[in-house]
């Protein structure tokens, strides 16, 4: 991945405003926050303290502090993340929507309290409406009801959908959505299954 070492400073100056005193204060706070993090977490279950070591995307998006990053920074984040997407070698982008539904419902996985051998889901419903039948859905992300019906099922749409699940940062810098493939949350097959849930005409999403 292309290094964007200068990006951090770029984001800080863009957002904080760039006065010398502010920048100094900012870096001091950052150092204290880093020290507090180091002293305040301990490994538990499958979650080691290495999870607190940020990659470039996480670091830059943290600095953006909930605001949209500057356009050029966003473009660099998206470009770097786009390069990580590994499309299926067999060229098949869609799996079984029924498995996809189970994955979309499953909230467990990767928490320190979860069995490392247990199921790992995408918990899509936590943030998205998907089907009419499930009333318990979140609204952090947009409604995906009739996702396929509205977009069609072309190869381009399939590739975008697979890629978006694989690494969402490739399409929207500093999005709230996890990078399911890039960070090893879901397997390639699981991503195919979730893509099928979104695109298969028989899926409850498209009814």
């Amino acid at each position: 991945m292309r290094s964007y070492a200068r990006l951090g400073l770029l984001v800080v100056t863009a957002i904080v405003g760039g006065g010398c005193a502010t920048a100094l204060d900012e870096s001091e706070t950052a150092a204290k926050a880093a020290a507090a993090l180091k002293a305040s977490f301990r490994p538990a279950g499958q979650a080691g303290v290495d999870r607190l070591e940020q990659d470039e995307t996480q670091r830059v998006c943290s600095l953006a502090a909930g605001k949209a990053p500057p356009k050029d920074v966003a473009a660099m984040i998206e470009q770097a993340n786009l390069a990580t997407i590994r499309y299926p070698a067999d060229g098949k982008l869609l799996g079984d929507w029924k498995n996809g539904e189970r994955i979309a419902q499953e909230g467990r996985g990767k928490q320190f309290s979860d069995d490392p051998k247990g199921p790992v889901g995408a918990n899509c419903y936590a943030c998205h409406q998907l089907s009419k039948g499930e009333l318990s859905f979140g609204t952090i992300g947009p409604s995906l009801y009739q996702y396929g019906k509205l977009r069609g099922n072309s190869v381009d749409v399939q590739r975008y959908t697979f890629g978006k699940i694989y690494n969402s940062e490739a399409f929207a810098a500093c999005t709230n959505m996890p990078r399911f493939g890039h960070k090893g949350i879901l397997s390639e097959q699981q991503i195919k299954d979730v893509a099928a849930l979104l695109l298969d005409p028989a899926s409850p999403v498209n009814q």
Partner: protein
Amino acid sequence: MKAVRSAVALAALAIAPSLLAQGSTADEIAKYRAALQDGNPAELWEGRGEALWKQQRGPKNVSLERCDLGLGAGVVKGAYAQLPRYFADADRVMDLETRLVWCMVTLQGYSEADAKKNPFGNGNDRKSDLEALTAYITSESRGVKMNVPMRHAKEAEAYRVGEKLFYFRGGTHDFACATCHSEEGKRIRLQDLPNLTTAEGAQKAYTTWPAYRVSQGELRTFEWRLYDCFRQQRFPELVFGSDAAIALTMFLARNANGAPFDAPAIKR
């Protein structure tokens, strides 16, 4: 058989309005929450906590009634509405739970490890004294306006660090506190998510912890709230009474200033 048939007929009648639109789902959930307000089992923790506060305990066999929670030795009324704060004797910003551990060590003679060995209770066999004490002390701030101080440099520093940590993205899922808590009107599944970056959102959230969680049958404190948020963020385990826990509490409590404290509450 006849009884069964009539029951089935009855079921068909009762199920008629079951295709509920989203609007009425929210209304019905609101009714559910309202129905729980009358009779909050948190009172069981408050009662136990008050007894613990007054009971002579520990190697020194003294009560906690001389513990200074920030408003002077033994003053409980309104103390939680002004926490976290800087304590000169400890030279540290402390939240309530950390201060209780401090008093259990300095007044009652417990080792620090003993004082905080069971911060979050689990059922009848592992009741947490800290949760009970926290329930009692917070209940004594009910109706008191949040007024967390920021006079000392370390209080200001804790606030700034807390803000920084609020936006810190990490772990397998790139989550930060801000992922779920920096926009208006969002929810996860059916749970409304407070926007903790606004005074209104922080007030609504912070003033309703501790809370009896019906899903767990336990009273949970704000330290637990942070601990469990980080668990769901896929972070490693937040250390009880740690700098990050106190800094985040400072950030949120200070943002809640001006609102009347209204807990222990009852929540899903």
